[in-house]
């Protein structure tokens, strides 16, 4: 089998641009997903069941349906409803953020609930409001425990951003598909794409393990 490095070289600029978009999509998904996930996680923990219900439903929907389907629905349904036309990058960011938010909400909830009840009681007995106790006492501790599962979620997000190729967001996999379509070659584009994803996820794992170690020594 002849492995065509020349067609990889030809597509290198596209793959590079695709890599940047993949990083951009993942970062946006992580940031928006984290903020949204925190709010949804807190919303689900509210004692009032009526208020908690929509948050609960949100998590059920986004965890219970494939991201692939969510991307298509958001691209062809949600984004055109707001913009009047499709926008693949916007749809990809929206889908990844909303999906990640559901998982991150559960990570937050588990993290917060893993903190001993005595911490909240001690903070409240010192006169702190529920919000102050959350912000200064519970969340900083919970956050430390959330880092490993959050890191896991971020790595999943990078990989799952490849599904955005289906709505033509020009990320790594989209250019891999284009390369395969032009030359009818399979190994060159997909092995190259695999290598790029691997470099991205290994780098992120490395950063996360450093972060974890640093927080542990504190």
């Amino acid at each position, binding site marked *: 089998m002849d492995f065509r490095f020349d067609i990889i070289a030809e597509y290198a600029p596209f793959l590079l641009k695709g890599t940047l978009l993949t990083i951009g999509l993942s970062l946006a998904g992580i940031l928006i997903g984290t903020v949204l996930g925190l709010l949804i996680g807190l919303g689900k923990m509210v004692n009032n069941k009526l208020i908690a219900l929509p948050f609960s439903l949100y998590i059920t929907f986004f965890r219970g349906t494939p991201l692939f389907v969510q991307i298509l629905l958001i691209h062809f349904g949600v984004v055109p409803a707001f913009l009047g036309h499709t926008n693949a990058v916007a749809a990809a960011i929206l889908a990844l953020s909303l999906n990640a938010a559901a998982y991150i909400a559960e990570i937050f909830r588990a993290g917060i609930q893993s903190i001993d009840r005595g911490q909240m009681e001690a*903070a409240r007995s*010192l*006169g702190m409001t529920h919000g102050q106790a959350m912000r200064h006492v519970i969340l*900083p501790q919970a956050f430390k425990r959330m880092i490993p599962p959050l890191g896991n979620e971020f790595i999943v997000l990078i990989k799952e951003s490849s599904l955005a190729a289906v709505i033509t967001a020009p990320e790594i996999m989209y250019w891999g598909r284009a390369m395969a379509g032009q030359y009818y070659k399979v190994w060159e584009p997909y092995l190259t794409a695999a290598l790029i994803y691997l470099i991205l996820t290994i780098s992120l794992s490395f950063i996360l393990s450093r972060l974890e170690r640093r927080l542990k020594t504190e």
Partner: protein
Amino acid sequence: MIKIQNLKKSFGTNEVLKDINLTIKPQEVVVVIGPSGSGKSTLLRCINLLESITGGHIYIEGKDITDKKNNLNKMREEVGMVFQQFNLFPHKTVIENIMLAPVKVRNVPAETARARGLELLRKVGLEEKAEAYPSSLSGGQKQRVAIARALAMEPKIMLFDEPTSALDPEVVGEVLEVMKQLAKEGMTMVVVTHEMGFAREVGDRVIFMDGGYIVEENEPIPLFENPQQERTQAFLSKVL
């Protein structure tokens, strides 16, 4: 200072406190004793409203803390609480543990809060541990920090919920010493404890609880030496 009227508390169908009436005067040290499950810890937690009460009223300096119109957080500022499990904030240093509430709740400038915190640490004999994390402290040291942390809010009353029960026997003394000092300075205190020696020595009044009721209350010496109630006698014969 504190007046408790007809206090009732149930967890589901389990009634833990049944009609408690109690008045605590300023500068008084009240020691609560009784078998486990008698409701003594719950009583303490109700005074700080860590547990919502089922019935009755609790007045602190004339204000009904069970009245929803009163600001609960403001009330809690006046009442310091020390827990059996210390509940120090593990992600903060000793001095940060002490400064947190004054700075965030009272808006005390950080410098002032730190100076005051160091003063309190000196008082409990742990000035050199200011920058240490709680995980590096012994149980006795942790509890002394917890007392300093509660004192930093300058409470009018201090509640101690079995403060020495989780400690190794050899460090119980150092914590009791700090509490004695506090009593001597005129702090109003309610202490739930199994330390009968402390109750006898420091308490102005001892309350014996059983089955959700206050069974007997008196000054320490008559209560310990001449209990009037059968249940008090039975309990004391076991613990003394």
